[in-house]
């Protein structure tokens, strides 16, 4: 880092931010109960953003270019990269903004087994947790991937920022399969900041149960409008619409008209949404201290969030970019109660989409439960194509909770009167 700072100075660059990080990983890949491949990784990179100022028609301007450099580059190569980026920046002038306020702090270490023990051991423990679930009748783990990442990050800036921290994460994905009566599979992923072996075993057990149901699911879904239950990660993706629409980079160009104080949920018959953005790391890649931030309170927008530049443009305190949020609604109905009413519980999709621009959400259904007269029938096929702008008028959250690396909140969400294309559509 000191060499980079010295060479930036030598290149005549007075404004910069350097985000440097090193990653050490252990990775395991399985096919059924066989080891496919094992991998390890050691990399170090420096993302250097160089800034310059200009002026046009009496207005001060700011430009930037970012370039990634490596420790193995020679001084001459680094100088060349910095000078090239600085030269290019003159053609990319934007309205002026200040760089983030400087913060200095000692290294923030991460604690816990995941951060402290060798990543190879953690990868093995998570693999054991996953395969511990693989003892059910009628369904099994088809394949799995486990990644343990230990990361050390360091941000310095020309304004004097100097912060560093350690992060650890375990993530991965797996496919569960059932062969009878239909041969089907389902995909799940996971990510934790702790060595959460119990959560992974529980998630895999649930996935094995779902895939067994998918194997006997019928293509009987009729087209029409349904009350739809979304659960776990599909709730997370749907509610992130509010995170997208309140982001400074969406508001500044006018892609979102939302502003603090707006009742973004509008007139409602159901629950009013309360969301909080959660800091996963102590600092952003720009060195901005990350703090928990209330985003929505009872459907009213409380904050705008985002990187330094767009927050500065909007005249709000830069918050850094968030990767996690919580939905703080305690819920008004247990999930068990929710499932007693006629509805469609859409469990998994081939690819669930939430379009922040249009507000449309949905996808092709891999497994859903059609709930009628107290009976739950597994169904497959068909697709959901709803609009959150309509659905938000009448929402119900479950009192049951769900947590993963990017979300903490209700496990289930009931949305009313959602358009569903059934498997009967082909006959029309």
């Amino acid at each position, binding site marked *: 880092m000191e060499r980079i700072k010295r060479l930036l100075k030598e290149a005549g660059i007075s404004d910069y931010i350097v985000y440097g990080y090193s990653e050490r990983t252990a990775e395991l890949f399985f096919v059924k109960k066989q080891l496919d491949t094992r991998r390890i990784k050691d990399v170090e990179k420096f993302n250097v953003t160089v800034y310059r100022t200009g002026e046009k028609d009496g207005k001060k301007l700011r430009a930037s270019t970012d370039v990634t450099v490596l420790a193995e580059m020679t001084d001459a190569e680094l100088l060349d990269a910095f000078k090239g980026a600085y030269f*290019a920046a003159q053609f990319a002038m934007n309205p002026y903004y200040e760089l983030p306020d400087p913060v200095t702090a000692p290294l923030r270490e991460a604690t816990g087994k995941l951060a402290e023990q060798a990543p190879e051991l953690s990868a*093995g423990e998570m693999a054991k947790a996953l395969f511990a679930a693989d003892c059910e009748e009628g369904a099994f783990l088809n394949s799995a991937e486990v990644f343990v990442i230990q990361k050390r990050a360091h941000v310095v800036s020309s304004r004097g920022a100097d912060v560093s921290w350690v992060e650890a994460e375990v993530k991965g994905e797996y496919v569960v399969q059932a062969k009878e009566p239909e041969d089907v599979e389902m995909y799940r992923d996971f990510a934790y900041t702790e060595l959460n072996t119990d959560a992974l075993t529980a998630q895999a057990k649930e996935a094995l149960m779902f895939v067994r149901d998918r194997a006997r699911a019928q293509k009987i879904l009729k087209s029409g409008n349904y009350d739809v239950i979304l659960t776990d990660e599909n709730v997370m993706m749907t509610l992130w619409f509010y995170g997208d629409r309140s982001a400074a980079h969406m508001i500044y*160009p006018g892609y979102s008209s939302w502003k603090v104080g707006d009742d973004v949920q509008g007139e409602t018959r159901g629950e009013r949404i309360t969301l909080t953005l959660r800091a996963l790391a102590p600092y952003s890649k720009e060195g901005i201290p990350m703090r928990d931030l209330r985003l929505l309170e009872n459907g009213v927008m409380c904050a705008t969030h985002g990187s330094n530049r767009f927050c500065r443009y909007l005249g709000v305190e830069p918050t850094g970019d968030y990767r996690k949020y919580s939905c703080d609604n305690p819920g008004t109905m247990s999930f068990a109660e929710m499932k007693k009413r006629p509805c469609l519980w859409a469990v998994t999709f*081939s690819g669930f989409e939430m379009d922040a621009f*249009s507000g*449309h959400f949905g996808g092709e259904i891999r497994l859903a439960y059609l709930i009628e007269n107290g009976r739950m029938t597994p169904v497959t096929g068909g697709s959901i194509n709803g609009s959150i702008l309509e659905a938000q008028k009448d929402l119900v959250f479950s009192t049951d909770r769900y947590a993963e690396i990017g979300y903490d909140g209700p496990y289930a969400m009931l949305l009313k009167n959602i358009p569903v294309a059934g498997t009967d559509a082909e006959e*029309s």
Partner: protein
Amino acid sequence: MFERLDTVKPALKKLIAVLCERYDYASVLATAERYRSWRVSKNGINLSASGLDGGDGYVIRVFDRTGCAEYSINAFSEDMIPAIVREMQERFEAERAALPEGITPMPTAMPDDSPAVLKKEAKYEIDPMELGDEAILDLIRRIREKGLKAENVMDIMCGVNYSAERKIFLSPHRDLDESHMWTNAFVGAIGARGEEIKESYKGYSVLGGAELLKTVESDIGEITKRLNDLLGSEPMIPGEYECVCNPEVTGMIVHEAFGHGVEMDMFVKDRAQAKQFIGDYVASPLVTMHDGSTVDECATWAFDDEGTLTGDTVIIDRGVLKTGMCDALSAMRLGVKPTGNGRRESYERKAYTRMTNTYFEGGDATKEEMIASIKYGFLLEEPTSGMEDPKNWGIQCMVNSAREIRDGKLTGRIFSPIVLTGYVPDLLKSVSMMGGKVELAGGGYCGKGYKEWVKVSDGGAYMKARIRLG
């Protein structure tokens, strides 16, 4: 290009020699990349030289008694060899020792290491870096300003990005060296209908350089017109319809609906239905599908990331499924020849079976003949996303617009957004007309599941089929 690789190459060969004293097989893939993107929109002007994750680095592959093991690094010199070898030995053993009880190594033969030497340079007319940042930014600013004059346009997003790469693959008997350049551009028009934002876009791609930009400026009028069409669109009425797919939508069907299903690492896992259909009719006789490097597009490489030479793989021949595409590890496990489809997102990632340039051959019909043949149906345009389902051959593709066809004519009504669903062979067997002009588009990246992004292209011609829309 990327002289650094020439400097380290002798030391990489020494590393392989040292590793081969301990392991049954060793190879190294070394990569170097120069990337740049230019963007203009209401968010301002953005210029980045950072690229995606990855960039310059090395992946070392060895085979021991437990099977295939890899080490990714981005610093290397000859004096680091002892430390690298020690690190690999200790940490691979630690990974093996920590495995759950009952997990056994997957039986895998040694990779084919028959002698091969190759040196290939990138082909391009204009290096974007020589054209310069100023000229590229001037061009996209000009396009944006022109587009902003159209009615109901809230913003025009316009961008160019390019990547120049060099890869060297070394093993005891292989020395493969290739440099490569692709350039992409896109223009997107954005407008609002109340709280709902609509976007129409067009993408451009070339295996080459800034010569691509000559064609970009002329389309802005068409893009803003399509945006206005979308702003007046109606929600789709679900049903199965006669459809005409434009070449981009055909490409998405080729790639998402069928291509992923014939990636043969999925055969190893018993995750692809296609495995049971080799030799069977899976499509109309009008359908012949290829994947490979005999066309010039963004994914054209002479060798893959495992050192397998590439070529042309005929996946479907006049409706009959002939073979899948295969990476080297999967090929050894299946006892077939690899097809040069072992690709990595970067040196930091595992290689999987991945598509390259994937397309349907053309036929002899015209778009006009297809539309004229439809009593009631839709012309599908602007694919936005798709998701594979190799196990069940289910389709999930999204397109931006469906233009209504009634009694052989476009009515002017437009529906949006559209979800395509159904069973892949049903759709492919329903193909009743295939257009003559094949167009490939390489503006996007392809994921494996939800990660592992690699540059691909896909395409075909206008195609008529029955498709379930929602």
